[in-house]
């Protein structure tokens, strides 16, 4: 019998899988779940330290399909960020992995998405972006590009909300776009996001095979394959095994240093792109929209900002683990306070 392959904390990949998916066969979301499993396993994150958070929608159902050994909370529509914020405040030591969709994040939950970024909540925020509301049978969402047409009905006439543009404008320190079918790129970005400290947004174009996988849909497999534009080739180098598995690229490359010591190696295809410059990212996204294309890769990276929990000046122990005597003033203090009221 072949020995089971273990990760750096000696766990088999089966410790990172979840229940069987109930999504449509071929759904892009299932590919993303696979990437989450792969990335968490390869990064050697203890699954009990991961908190899976989601809202409502096809995408938000997926936490049942990965990381079965992690606690999770499938919350209400568009409100995953606030629940994650509360959890993060009382337990800052967990790895928060949020999964949302374009309906969940770009419409009903756009306020919470914005404010979680503004606070720089320490989490990975995955948007599984298919341009439609799947569970309610295929209505357009707010991220769908102008002119895109789902399987049934008229083309979408409204301009899209580009979640990456929005995140960059709000000062998000890690913004990436990928495609559910681009397994290598998405896995590298997912691992990098998990290695980032602060808000990491990955907008993943994920075709809806049931309602919008026709060629006129800009988020269909066929369309993305033909109109996708990678900013760079990409490799993730683990801090615990720096030289394994990575080829030294022949052309130019740039290493992005991540919080946990890991490195994201960007193999430069477009020499002028600067991932530290937010206006360059906005320009690239704008041009792609004009050309009806999808630009993918690490769009923006910045590590300067304190996270929401750092801003609080909290004790080192997670607040949920504090002993009772740290949660209540003692009797002596109480008497002092009462005396002050009575003075």
């Amino acid at each position: 019998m072949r020995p089971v392959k273990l990760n750096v904390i000696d766990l088999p990949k089966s410790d990172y899988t979840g229940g069987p998916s109930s999504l449509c066969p071929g759904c892009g979301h299932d590919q993303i779940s696979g990437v989450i499993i792969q990335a968490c396993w390869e990064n050697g994150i203890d699954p009990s330290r991961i908190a899976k958070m989601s809202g409502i929608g096809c995408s938000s159902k997926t936490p049942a399909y990965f990381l079965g050994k992690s606690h999770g909370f499938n919350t209400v529509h568009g409100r995953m960020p606030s629940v994650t914020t509360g959890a993060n405040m009382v337990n800052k030591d967990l790895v928060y992995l949020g999964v949302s969709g374009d309906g969940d994040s770009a419409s009903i939950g756009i306020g919470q998405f914005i404010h979680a970024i503004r606070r720089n909540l320490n989490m990975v925020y995955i948007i599984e972006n298919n341009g439609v509301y799947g569970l309610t049978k295929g209505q357009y969402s707010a991220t769908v590009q102008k002119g895109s047409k789902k399987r049934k009905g008229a083309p979408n006439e409204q301009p899209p909300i580009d979640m990456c543009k929005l995140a960059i404008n709000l000062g998000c320190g890690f913004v990436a776009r990928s495609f559910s079918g681009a397994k290598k790129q998405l896995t590298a970005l997912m691992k990098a996001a998990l290695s980032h400290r602060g808000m990491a947004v990955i907008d993943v174009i994920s075709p809806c095979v049931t309602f919008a996988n026709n060629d006129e849909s800009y988020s269909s497999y066929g369309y993305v394959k033909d109109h996708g534009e990678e900013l760079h080739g990409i490799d993730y180098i683990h801090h615990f095994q720096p030289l394994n598995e990575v080829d030294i690229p022949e052309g130019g490359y740039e290493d992005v240093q991540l919080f946990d010591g890991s490195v994201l190696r960007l193999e430069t295809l477009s020499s002028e792109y600067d991932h530290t410059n937010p206006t360059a990212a906005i320009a690239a996204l704008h041009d792609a929209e004009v050309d009806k294309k999808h630009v993918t890769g690490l769009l923006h990276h910045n590590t300067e900002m304190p996270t929401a929990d750092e801003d609080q000046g909290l004790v080192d122990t997670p607040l949920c683990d504090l002993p009772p005597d740290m949660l209540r003033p003692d009797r002596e203090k109480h008497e002092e306070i009462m005396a002050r009221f009575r003075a």
Partner: protein
Amino acid sequence: MGATVNDFVINVATANGTGSQSSNLILLNSLFEMGVPVSGKNLFPSNISGLPTWFIIRASDKGYQAPGDRTNIQILMNPDTWFKDIEKIESGTVIIYNENVKMPVEREDCLVFGLPMTKLARGINPKMAKMIANMYYVGVIQHLIGIEQDALERAVNRQFKGKSSAVEVNLRAIEEGRAMAAEGIDWESPHVVEAREKDEDTFLVDGNEAVALGSIYGGINMLSWYPITPSSSVAEGIIQWLPELRDTSDGESTCAVVQAEDELAAAGMVLGAGWAGGRGMTCTSGPGISLMSEFIGLAYFAEVPGVIWDVNRVGPSTGLPTRTQQGDLNLLREASHGDTEHIVLIPGTVEECFEYGWRAFEYAERYQTLVFGFSDLDLGMNNWVCTGFEYPSEEIDRGKVLRTAEQVSAIENYGRYRDVDGDGVPYRTLPGSGLDPILYRGTGHDEDGIYSEEPDVYRKLMMRLKRKIDNSRADLPAPVIREEENQDVGIIYMGSMENTIQEIDDMIEQTGLKVSQCRIRAMPIHPDVESFIERHERVIVLEINRDGQLYGVLRKELPNDLASRISSVAYSDGMPPRARIYADMILETLGEVKP
């Protein structure tokens, strides 16, 4: 005819933002310092500057704290309400007014005295004249009713926190006002104060600060809030007290504070904190509860502990944002769609605001559900005499949380939602523990937390939830019962009506009827409420709203034979309850139900 002693109502009519609050609190505190039972009510507009405001001070040896049915001393400072204020004044009232308003006071039937308050104040400090002008009526009242100088000085010092320049300037204005009144008033004041022995243990505090302190003693770990009158001062109180009471010696915090983007997010954060094993809380008012309702249902269904304080203002909609009501009870009891019910703690005193501040977290974690604290603007934002806050009588108890693998394996066939003990309360494990992880969800779920639409699974879960909350009845604060031997009439009431009930009771008893009181302090209804109703032939449910919400809850929750025994008396006009209105309505209702 001699003057009445310690039994009068002062009404100060002024405009918002003119600085009269300091003068009014000095008057209130002076009386309090003299040991006179006193209450103060600030009737303020939803506005920062310019709209009319009234401050009502009532001194009463009987301890009556309602605004009173008539004004005895009227201060006129506000030209905008001048004529309306004068019109309302009853014959024989003392009227003190600011002559610089240059408006007439034509009331031959009243005792009238005017001073050019603004002009005099300008003489002391031209820049601060608008504020200092208010101190002159303090001086006039000091002369009229006989406020002791040292009590007054203590009150001024307290108001200006001992800041000597402010104390000196304001005392000077008060003294000028007093001296001019002594010189210019040639009539006897019909109202005087006499010092009483002051209970040195008492102090004045508002309910919101009491809730804030109580929450801190309750081990709050995360406060999320979105500003809304009249609840903001709960959050601000917590923020103000946290560094002293809950930081470590290194200045590190044991409670996070997040000003949320809206009430939905504030509620979401409470759920997140509770899910992760912390003690999360938010405070809001009715409009906020409406917005939070979806999350409230999730907390109920997924069994996540959390605390929400509702400081009730007047609804529906934006309503009267700065006025008081008990209009949110129905909303709290059954907030969110589907079949839900929630534990509601209803303090009626500032002492109880403190106590339920910490107890709310205990109940939330014990029953793994959302617990409401239900206060109102009158209790929350006005100052009340407090005998002191009692240190929590119980240690912090985190409820049924499994923290080790041994604890989990000791339970046969553990599941997050399995009723192991038969009390409806299951055991939970926390994220990060690695113990029996589940995906919490607002969708139907079986005893292991797995998605299910099975009819039997759903029905069983809903019945367990009902049993769980039902089992809290006797554990929640029992009603406060003041019972007569002659059990003619029982009055059931709640919350801030406590401050008016005795006066109502006395008014009704003037007719010869004996009145027993039963103040409900929690939902679901405590068993003692049922036995109280059983002992009384006629029971009135008295509350500050239009529709009789408490009455409705009781009708629904009481056995049929008891439900038919209660009658509703409900009235709300935004004002704190005035005894006469309610007493008359009760008498009328009793007339109707009399055999």
